[in-house]
């Protein structure tokens, strides 16, 4: 099975774009319910993406929270014609990359010491663990492509990178995951 296919696809978002615009509008006007719906709609993927990039649950929780706090601060200025998710994910992934780079420089924890994710049967846990050995930049684009299902063009815009850079990081990341998968772990 193709590795990218094994990483799978997210289920479709339950809320359509016009509904989300309605939620944003209501939240802008003070509806706590609308804000909570927006939060619960987007929290899981934001947190998972942050975790997969940082491999640190506490950092991922902080990063996801900070992203939503940024959303609250910017709510009045937010253009409802734009989708909320990509805007949020840009904050999450950029912060997660920065955190991971800073942590690497500080040499706190080696990647192979990080705990593995909860096992869900088959070899999903192996795949997720192997993400940890990728450099943060490659890890982020793999997460954005195969967890959050952005196209390479959308990823380029999210991260402010040339399209070619995104494609090459994606290729190198997936190749590294494939190669690593051929090595029997001991």
């Amino acid at each position, binding site marked *: 099975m193709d590795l990218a296919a094994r*990483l*799978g*696809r*997210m*289920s479709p978002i339950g809320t359509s774009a016009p509904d989300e615009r309605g939620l944003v509008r209501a*939240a*802008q*006007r*003070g509806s*706590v319910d609308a*804000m*909570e719906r927006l*939060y*619960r709609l987007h*929290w*899981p993927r934001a*947190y*998972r993406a942050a*975790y*997969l990039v940082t491999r640190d*649950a506490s950092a*991922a*929780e902080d990063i*996801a*929270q*900070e*992203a*939503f*706090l*940024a959303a*609250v*601060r*910017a*709510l*009045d200025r937010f253009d409802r014609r734009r989708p909320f998710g990509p805007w949020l994910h840009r*904050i999450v992934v*950029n*912060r997660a990359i*920065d955190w991971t780079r800073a942590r690497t420089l500080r040499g706190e924890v080696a990647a192979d010491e990080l*705990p593995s*994710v*909860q096992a*869900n*049967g088959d070899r*999903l846990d192996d795949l*997720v663990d192997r993400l940890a050995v990728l450099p943060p930049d490659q890890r982020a684009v793999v997460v954005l492509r*195969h*967890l959050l299902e952005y196209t390479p063009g959308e990823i380029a815009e999210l991260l*402010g*990178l040339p399209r070619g850079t995104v494609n090459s990081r994606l290729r190198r990341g997936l190749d590294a995951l494939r190669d690593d998968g051929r090595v029997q772990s001991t």
Partner: protein
Amino acid sequence: MDGFRAPDETRAQERGWAVVAAAYAEREPLPQRRRRLAPVVAATGAAALAAVAVTQPGRAVITSVRKAIGIEHARKALYALPSGGRILAGGWLVHGDGSTRRLGDYRETSWSPFGRYVVAAKANELVALTPGGEIRWTLARPDVGFPRWGGTQADTRIAYLSGDRLHVVAGDGTGDHEAGPSPAARVAPAWRPGGAPFTLAYADMRGRVWVFDTQTGRLRFRTSGGSRPTRLAWSRNGSTLLVVRPDEIDTYDISGRHAAHGRGRFVDAAFVGVRLAVLRPHELTLGTRMLFRTTGTLRQVVVSPDGRWLLVTWPQADEWLFIGTGGRPRVTAVANIA
């Protein structure tokens, strides 16, 4: 990834909602119809107005000029900003209703990217504070000047000069380090908006302008040398860099291609959308339109973020001029700035 769950996901979500809900409860909801406060404008040259006195002949000139452009009487004092929003002027913060707050004994100030904080320079100190004047952190450095705050909503950097060295520090005051390949000239650096968030332009002692990524050190491009620039500014979408020198004005695209060149006497300039507002010693133009002309000497031009107003400082007259950019000419003069 349908089956993937991050650790402690459910409880993390509930903890997160408690924090987000509290922050949401503190915000003021957007009313149905509200004139948005324009975000802020920094007028760092205004502090110099305090030293200027106006002589009688000067007053006569000013009166005739005002009549010529349709301003009979300048407002005696700043009681409201035509542009709305807030203005930083040295160590002072001017609100849209004309009220002022003294932030401190700072010689220069500028806004954080989204107007939540202020960065300020003292002689030997860099300071980050709230618009209310509460200090968040300080950094002791010699001869601090031209602090400029850039970045994204999630991550910011401050560029500033310490003597002739360019420094970059994170928005929380950590990680301060020297940056830039060459000693810096005393002109404000400029963060590139949009795209890569930490690309910075600065001028060196030889008049060259360097554009580089402050995270990676990668050089985007460097201009040739010349007279010391007086202003570096990016277009709002970050596609074009403006370099103003006393005798030249140039624009470059992000790859460093020289896009436009002009010769003459220039004081300042700024992007208004895709047009250039150019300030010469005695006149202000926007594209091909003449917006204002005087026999006095103008000092600085600043654009309101919505692009509808230009603020021009006129130290000799102790005035600020608010000049509308669209429609028929509108000039509002406010006196007694010092």
